[in-house]
């Protein structure tokens, strides 16, 4: 990668001499995904998630290492392999911009050599499932982001791929559109037993769709396991929220010795999960409580904490 120093003089000297550095986008990533799995790749920006998907779909060639998808080496780009998977990138448009999506679908049918009856059946099924039939004849440039993403997904699934790579498919979408895509993806994946690898920054996507989560930071795998295990493994406490009738007795809260926060009539405590059963009756005894809830730490918070930790400092046994 070319390191471009700031300033005009540096730019001029950069015409004659450039310094560059090697960036290892991915290193030591060892991952096996079984048929029919729905796996989420999580990681901060620049962690290597998209690079990983690009490698698996054969867009780029690694400097070293091996990968097999459906038994094929992706970067050999054989037609047989490319007919069996699809890639959808939330930040890229793959439909013809000035034309209705129906035209792109027609081209897709030719490229993937789809039998007309099968093509029509799959297309109708997918557009009905997403409720986008009326958008088929509208130029893509006139569609909203959510509508466009739905049609991108239809295009990607027309040839009934066995593997689907999704790179931030819900980026920029409103809650309704996100929810709609979640339902659609969950249904299609379950029905087709499709293998899906998803990169996202939204924990709602993960919670709604994936049982397995792989966390990547600095190009290496930091965690690979179930969603539930993340919570168990990386947090030692739960969040207890008390909804009080009157002002909280702060002195008593201090005496309990747990971190707390007061938000109006609410008190939020972080209590060691092994001590919840002992401590909770004591807390409730001294306060006039209208409501109480005990919850896990939000996933976003756990994952953000994970991202902050260095790849090399991963807790023992967190890698598969």
């Amino acid at each position, binding site marked *: 990668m070319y390191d471009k120093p700031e300033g005009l003089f540096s730019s001029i000297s950069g015409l004659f001499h450039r310094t560059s550095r090697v960036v290892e986008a991915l290193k030591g990533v060892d991952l096996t995904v079984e048929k029919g799995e729905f796996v989420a790749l999580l990681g901060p920006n620049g962690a290597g998630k*998209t690079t990983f998907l*690009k490698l698996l*779909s*054969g*867009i*780029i*060639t690694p400097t070293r290492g091996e990968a097999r998808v459906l038994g094929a080496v992706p970067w050999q*780009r054989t*037609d*047989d*392999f*490319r*007919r069996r*998977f*699809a*890639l959808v*990138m939330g*930040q*890229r*448009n*793959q439909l*013809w911009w*000035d*034309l209705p999506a129906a*035209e*792109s679908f*027609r*081209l897709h049918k*030719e*490229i*993937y*050599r789809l039998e007309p009856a099968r093509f029509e059946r799959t297309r109708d099924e997918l557009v009905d499932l997403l409720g986008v039939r009326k958008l088929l004849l509208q*130029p893509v440039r006139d569609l909203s982001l959510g509508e466009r993403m739905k049609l991108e997904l239809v295009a990607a699934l027309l040839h009934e791929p066995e593997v689907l790579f999704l*790179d*931030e498919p819900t980026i920029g979408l409103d809650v309704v559109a996100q929810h709609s895509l979640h339902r659609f993806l969950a249904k299609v994946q379950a029905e087709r037993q499709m293998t899906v690898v998803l990169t996202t920054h939204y924990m709602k996507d993960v919670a709604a769709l994936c049982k397995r989560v792989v966390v990547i930071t600095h190009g290496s795998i930091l965690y690979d396991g179930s969603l539930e295990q993340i919570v168990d493994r990386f947090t030692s406490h739960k969040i207890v929220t008390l909804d009080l009738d009157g002002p909280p007795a702060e002195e008593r809260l201090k005496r309990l010795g747990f971190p707390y926060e007061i938000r109006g009539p609410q008190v939020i405590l972080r209590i060691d999960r092994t001590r919840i059963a002992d401590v909770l009756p004591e807390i409730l005894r001294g306060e006039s409580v209208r409501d109480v809830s005990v919850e896990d730490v939000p996933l976003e918070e756990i994952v953000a904490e994970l991202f902050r930790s260095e790849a090399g400092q991963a807790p023992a046994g967190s890698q598969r």
Partner: protein
Amino acid sequence: MGRYLSIFLCCARACLVRDMTFRANFLLECLTSVGWMSMNLAFYLLVFTFTSEIGRNTGWTREPFFAFVATGLIINAIVQAFFMPSAEELTEMVRTGGLDGVLVQPLDAQFLLSMHRFDFSSLANGFVGIGLLVWALLRMEHAPPPIAWLLYPLTILCGVAILYSLIVMLAAATILMGRNQSLYDFWFYLTNFSRYPAEIYAGPWGSPLRALCTFVIPILLVVNVPARVIAQPFAGQTWGWVAAAIVAAGGALVLSRVIFQAALAKYRSASS
């Protein structure tokens, strides 16, 4: 092959639909294109008010020369309509990562990248070229023999193949460089040499240039060979030109393929 033809036709159909959607733009492009070409023709007519022949004893008198110009218009119209728009778009695709979407499709990437966008308004010049060719041939002193009529489309195809190969090589440079916005300019400078009869490249400067544009970058064979076949008396020497065009077209296609594949292997994609 049938599949590639149907994809080609499907892309062509989609582009035609798009062009028709922006009909004012389409008509304006046709008019601009024909306007520019008319100015060129007027310039050549002006030249022929001062001279009866381009060069001395070259055989490029007014009508044969206009047949030459017509041949150039036809070849350029084909290239501008079917290959250039895709190549121009490739620069942007490489810079923004749009190329990723093409590489995952089960299709030859070179085919899809070089033939997915068409500009039908560029064909307007081609139709004018056909009209001009008919006009010139009807006024020429000699009628082209049947073999010339057979070889003319073949050599036109060779010319298109040479230009297509150059486009592909420039597009490959785009992939390697990440950005190549001077692609069209460079193309224009190169093809400029093909717009005149080879005979004008003579003398201490002209001869090396002629050798360079014939044997290294065979741009001089693009229009000169088909134009010579149809507009000059058919002689034994013509066969040599035809053979040269066929060899150059084949070599250029192979070389461009090798360069394009090498460039694709180096593609790094853009960050998303």
